[in-house]
């Protein structure tokens, strides 16, 4: 199970990659493996506003359906349309081709994206998955 060092994480098993004012979001390798094969992903509409900690979509696997939570506040700028035809990308490449959506986030006066409190570091996230067994 991989937890890339350059990403931020949530307790709900999403990952966030920040590139200036854009946050790219997906679910972690741990989440994808726990769910089993993903068969459908419902994503927020481009242009819609998402709120950190609020559900904004669904991830359906063979056996279950789970809410997808936005890790950040902002406006959805892009969704991964590839997942429509090939939701299995989430299992195959959760941090790559299996990404889910992008959000424009507020940028502080220091030029850094303002991230909500409560995001986990890779080390903290790894701890969480270990304690979850």
């Amino acid at each position, binding site marked *: 199970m991989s937890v890339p060092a350059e990403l931020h994480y949530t307790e709900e098993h999403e990952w966030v990659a920040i590139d200036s004012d854009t946050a790219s979001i997906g679910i972690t390798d741990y989440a994808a493996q726990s769910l*089993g*094969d993903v068969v*459908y992903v419902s994503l927020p509409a481009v242009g819609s506003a998402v709120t950190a900690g609020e559900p904004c979509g669904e991830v*359906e696997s063979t*056996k279950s*359906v789970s809410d997808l939570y936005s890790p950040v506040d902002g406006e959805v700028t892009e969704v991964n349309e590839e997942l429509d035809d*090939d939701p*299995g*990308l989430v*299992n195959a490449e959760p941090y790559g081709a299996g990404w889910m959506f992008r959000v424009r986030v507020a940028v502080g006066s220091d030029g850094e994206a303002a991230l909500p409190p409560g995001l986990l570091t890779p080390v903290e996230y790894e701890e969480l998955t270990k304690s979850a067994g």
Partner: protein
Amino acid sequence: MTDFAGWLMPLRYKSETAEHTAVRSSAGLFDLSHMGEIAVTGPGAGAALDYAVCGWPSALAPGRARYTMLCAEDGGVLDDLVIYRQGPERFMVVANAVNTAVVLAELRKRSAATSGAEVQDETAATGLIAIQGPNAAGILSTVTDLDLADMRYYAGAYGTVAGCRVWVARTGYTGEDGFEIFCAPQDCERIWMALTQAGEMLLGPGDALLAPALRGTTPPSPAEPDGLMPAGLAARDTLRLEAGMPLYGNELGRNMTPYEAGLGRVVRLDKPSDFVGRKALAARSEEGPRQVLIGLVAKSRRVPRHGYPVMSRTGQRVGVVTSGARSPTLRTSIAMAYVETDATTPFGIDIRGSEEPAEVTELPFYDRSKQG
């Protein structure tokens, strides 16, 4: 791994979609040792079973098998079973793991009045490995002394697999050709390894299938055989659903008779002897089922699941989904559902608050004899 009726079972080995596809295009290997095996033996065994179940086991020739049901006095289904006649005075009743205790108790009770019939629980003394898929016969034939070409569907014989004494039957729960191998528990591992190796020798490593199936942009081509893969409960469930086969607890239960499930043919009212539930079942046969089991294909990519309401055009709840899945073979969302007998199409399925249109389709969703 998951707890299943007290057994620790693999839900999947790697990818349930790849496992499912392997069974459709090549072959899959299942550990089904959780299934209940109950032997009914003796000169009165056939008569005892004729009274206990709604089928006609005494009419089976030795070496043949039949799908049947154990019903309550009111006609409700206590379990669905496969009964193998292993010899003139020996039948093996295979029950669902979750119902084995009920089936055993009922068989004992119902056979008490028949002389010369003994009921024995052999579950703990029996391992069960299934190999299913178009390549199953080819793989199994390399490690058995049985002539599989001579074995018909729903037939079985004693023989050896990997040198171990077994009962092999051409039965399964996937909608594909395949075999079930009943063996001593201590021989399971040896048989499993022998089949795995035979699969690799014939077809190459089974993992070759994993990558393309996971990527899944193009449907697997049946023309390109892939390897043998171990398959878990999740794949078993989607395979049987595509094949339109009922699952106890979903399509079958105490609150319905075989007629509701569209399986009235298993009730042998033409059997001369009395059997438990005959009166109620004869009446239900006359008056018709109280609900009907239908197949639905949803246009949405969202997955209909057990318990979701089926709605009529006017927004009335007219039924309920019993099993649903994203079909790996058909690449659509499929479901079986019970609806009221007078419910009229079009139907929708209420998927967590939003209604998705669904078309009624003939069962099974997948029929291997109709594939090109």
